[in-house]
């Protein structure tokens, strides 16, 4: 807190804007930074302009921004994740280009360091987490036969703070600079003495606020699964995806707080001269490492478990077969969730502790390979004696199965302290975690996107382009990250913006070409979406069951009505909808139609999104008056909204009845379609049973 700070603007001045550094020093590195800043500004202006031109503001406000519908909130999460994915991926490209061009290169070391810091932060906190939270939000309540999540407004608030933290990350491209301390932000490097700029402050506030959002989401999902299941939906009748969602949500509740606490302690060090992690006065940076990884390791299982859930659904549906070893899979999922809290120390085997500690944590880490291996075998047995269809989600799933095993192997290697002493902090580690996060998490999420898209929007995505994209992801991943294993074994440290040893050059060149293939995969996803929207009338699946699905979400129309189920289903079997289809009681009208109560729209989420965004920005730039004002506004908005008595709206029985009868009429008119014609216009979502 220097006295030179401006009262109104804090540390902010003209030189904070990214373009001014370019004007002072017109170099390629600054040009890249300015281009990134311009993209943010122009994309924002273009989006706002287009929305005004097409007059969608009113619709956007009443249908989306104030909606408490879990399905719409889920879709907004996914849209947000895809936007952030684009940024994170482009940053990866620039880094690969720099390392391929090294030792000459075109970026400054500091710029490269900002890139790997934002890339990691964004990919973990603003792509993987929101993407999976979005999919769970959309799918899980439908699978357990609920009308919404347990706390719809809380759900909105979680989205609000996640998005505002993501926007703060975007603002850091234009105003000031981001942290150079990596996504893990180890002090003392990120402390006030060694990083006096605003960079680490951007990191701290983005992490604290999105972390609160994710914790609240975890509470929300856990309560929903525990309390909102429909009649007959016993725990062991839940689809596998719900089990993974439950375990992942419990991890969110217990894993995120250590991160928020660690980030806030770092904040206290930086803002108020505390000495938790400083070099002097008894500060100890290894306490930060402990807290961070106490979050960080459960975090990776938090990310990968829902992806396992998606794969379980995909393998079973596209093999037209029950999931093999359901109970094994449930126990494996739960044991992974528990074990994930016992392994964090393997992130710093090299700290100099006694070998006994390393042995305990090394063995605990390797133990996780057992339930994970069981899962892989169970998925193989699910395909065994099935009828496998090679659709886009299935291509992702198969790619995952093969590549994830490689990631598992390198994970077991890294679990050995003896070997970890050698490859820790090298590109071998980078290759390993990309190997589990891309084929594991991202493939799962993209498979889920292709799989449930017709449920959400009422028409199928183009499968041919979907498969092409999946193949490109697989090839791009292999080319980008398998060479990094080699470079890591040869001793190339991670986070090197350059290198002198030309041995690494061929590896880096191949990795760069692989990154371009990944970019092609991302572009294919965009093209797929555009093509599919354009041809939507040929691909509509209004009956709602395009893949001969097995769980409840396929038993209702696509897109799903706001109240989900005209009458809450009653479940007697594990694959509830397959059972209904086989016994012939699918598509039956409810005996009586009743009024349905749903949560009303609420503008609290939007207000908190804006005010928390302003609060974070004010804190980063030391604008104390603004921070105080926005904090008071947040408090006021929450108190004011709790005085709303009318929080429910009623959908009348007659409206439900007319909707349902129209849909059932459509079912009667539809031709049951054989799986051979799954991806043709004949598929209107009425599946012929497999025999």
């Amino acid at each position, binding site marked *: 807190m220097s006295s030179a700070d401006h009262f109104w603007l804090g540390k902010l001045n003209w030189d904070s804007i990214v373009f001014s550094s370019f004007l002072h020093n017109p170099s390629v590195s600054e040009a890249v930074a300015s281009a990134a800043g311009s993209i943010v500004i122009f994309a924002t202006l273009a989006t706002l302009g287009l929305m005004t031109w097409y007059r969608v503001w009113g619709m956007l406000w009443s249908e989306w921004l104030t909606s408490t519908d879990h399905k719409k909130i889920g879709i907004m999460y996914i849209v947000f994740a895809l936007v952030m994915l684009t940024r994170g991926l482009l940053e990866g490209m620039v880094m690969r280009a720099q390392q391929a061009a090294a030792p000459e290169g075109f970026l400054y070391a500091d710029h490269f360091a900002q890139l790997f810091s934002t890339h990691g932060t964004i990919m973990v906190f603003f792509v993987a987490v929101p993407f999976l939270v979005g999919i769970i939000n959309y799918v899980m309540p439908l699978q357990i036969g609920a009308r919404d999540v347990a706390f719809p407004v809380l759900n909105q608030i979680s989205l609000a703070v996640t998005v505002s933290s993501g926007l703060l990350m975007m603002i850091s491209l234009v105003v000031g600079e981001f942290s150079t301390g990596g996504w893990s932000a180890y002090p003392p490097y990120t402390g006030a003495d060694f990083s006096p700029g605003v960079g680490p402050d951007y990191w701290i506030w983005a992490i604290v606020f999105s972390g609160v959002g994710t914790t609240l989401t975890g509470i929300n999902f856990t309560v929903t699964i525990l309390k909102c299941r429909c009649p007959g939906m016993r725990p062991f009748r839940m689809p596998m995806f719900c089990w993974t969602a439950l375990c992942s949500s419990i991890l969110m509740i217990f894993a995120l707080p250590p991160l928020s606490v660690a980030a806030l302690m770092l904040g206290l060090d930086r803002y108020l001269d505390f000495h938790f992690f400083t070099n002097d006065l008894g500060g100890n940076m290894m306490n930060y490492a402990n807290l961070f990884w106490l979050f960080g390791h459960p975090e990776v299982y938090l990310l990968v478990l829902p992806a396992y859930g998606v794969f379980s659904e995909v393998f079973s549906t596209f093999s037209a077969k029950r999931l093999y070893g359901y*109970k094994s899979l449930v126990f494996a999922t739960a044991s992974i969730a528990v074990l994930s809290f016992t392994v964090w120390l393997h992130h710093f085997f090299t700290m100099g502790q006694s*070998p006994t500690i390393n042995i305990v944590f090394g*063995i605990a880490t390797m133990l996780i390979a057992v339930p994970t291996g069981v899962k*892989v075998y169970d998925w193989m047995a699910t395909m065994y004696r099935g009828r496998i269809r090679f659709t886009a989600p299935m291509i992702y799933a198969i790619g995952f199965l093969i590549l994830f095993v490689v990631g598992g192997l390198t994970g077991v*290697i890294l679990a050995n302290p003896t070997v970890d002493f050698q490859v*820790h902090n090298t590109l071998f580690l980078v290759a390993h975690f990309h190997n589990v996060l891309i084929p594991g998490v991202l493939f799962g999420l993209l498979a889920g996107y292709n799989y449930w898209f017709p449920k959400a929007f009422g028409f199928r995505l183009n499968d041919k382009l979907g498969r092409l994209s999946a193949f490109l992801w697989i090839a791009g991943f292999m080319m980008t990250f398998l060479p990094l294993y080699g470079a890591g074994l040869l001793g190339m440290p991670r986070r090197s913006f350059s290198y002198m*040893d030309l041995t690494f050059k061929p590896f880096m060149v191949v990795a760069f070409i692989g990154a371009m293939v990944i970019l092609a995969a991302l572009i294919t996803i965009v093209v797929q979406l555009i093509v599919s929207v354009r041809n939507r009338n040929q691909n509509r699946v209004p009956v709602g069951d395009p893949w001969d699905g097995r769980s409840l979400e396929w038993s209702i129309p696509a897109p799903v009505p706001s109240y989900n189920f005209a009458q809450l289903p009653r479940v007697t079997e594990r694959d509830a909808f397959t059972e209904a289809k086989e016994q012939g009681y699918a598509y039956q009208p409810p005996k009586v139609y009743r009024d349905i109560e749903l949560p009303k729209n609420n503008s609290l989420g939007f207000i908190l999104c804006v005010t928390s965004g302003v609060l974070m920005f004010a804190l980063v730039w030391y604008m104390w008056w603004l921070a105080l004002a926005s904090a008071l506004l947040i408090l006021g908005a929450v108190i004011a909204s709790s005085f709303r008595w009318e929080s429910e709206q009623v959908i009348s029985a007659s409206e439900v009845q007319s909707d349902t009868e129209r849909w059932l009429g459509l079912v009667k008119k539809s031709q049951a379609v054989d799986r051979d014609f799954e991806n043709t216009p004949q598929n209107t979502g009425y599946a012929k049973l*497999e025999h």
Partner: protein
Amino acid sequence: MDWKVGSPVGFLQLSHPALEWRFFHLPRLTLVFLFFLPFLLSPGQVSAAESFLVPLGPIAQEQKTHFLWVIALTMVAIFPVFILVPVILIKYRRKKGHGIYAPKWESYGPLELMMWGVPFMVILVLSSMLWRATSRLDPYQAVEGVLPPIQMQVVGLDWKWLFIYPDLGIATVGELVIPVHTPVSMTLTSDTVMQSFLISALAGQIYVMPGMTTKLNFIASKTGETEGENTQFTGRGFADQKFTVSVRSEEEFHTWSEQVRAVGIELDTATYHRLAERSTRRKAHSELATAQMPAKAIYFTLPNLQLFRDIVMRYHSGKPLSIEEQPGTEKFGRSRDAVKDAQP
């Protein structure tokens, strides 16, 4: 370096009518092309002398052996996946597949037992190996050797390493020289942010932290040159924070130490402060080294044998350190001229 890029370029320029570029050809051909690219680009010979894959001592050798064993044993659990997944996909594909269809088959006891049992047995074996290897290769444990160990003190600075030979009264930057067949016993600390010290061909890495010490023990079994580095990101000059490691015979080591003592400059407080500033090895070399020193190394003699202790104790004075007093910050060294004036 020999770059064999001729062939892929020629591949792209093919214009035979049979190779009409249709939409679906493009990804397939690209994939084939990309898959082979690493082999086409790989230089004549890969030098791996900086890696534990080409060990210079028994510790790195054992680490390499352990690494290969872990791969081999884990293969027991994962090899079936590589084989069986394609087989299942071909046999049970919906179109033209010829396997039987059992849509309700969901559990089979013996198979379940195998699924849990095989990975568990593999992990059991791996765990016992891990246990033994981890205790045997504890970096804190002194290495047994015929000769008495050489004591060393290592200080991580921004962005270079200072190697102190307290028994010889000398110190170096940018060059670590050790005698062959002699156990090396290092005590390490940092005089800036946390770093990680690695000489891959000799031993694993260990963190170095300000105000704290860690230990690393190893021995070299053959003479030769390799490289050491910091693997923990520490800012702008991080990528340059490497040093040459040279393993020499007893006599050569002795000659070398005599030479260091002869040409080394005194590492007094003022010189140390200059060295501890944020700078790469190259910059420090141009500021401090004399013409008699090698191109990449700086040699020092030690007037203060308590230097290492003083560095560690800097953070235990019980008083806050201002930003100007902390080596590695941007402001450290601003008051250098004042320090210089104080010392005649």
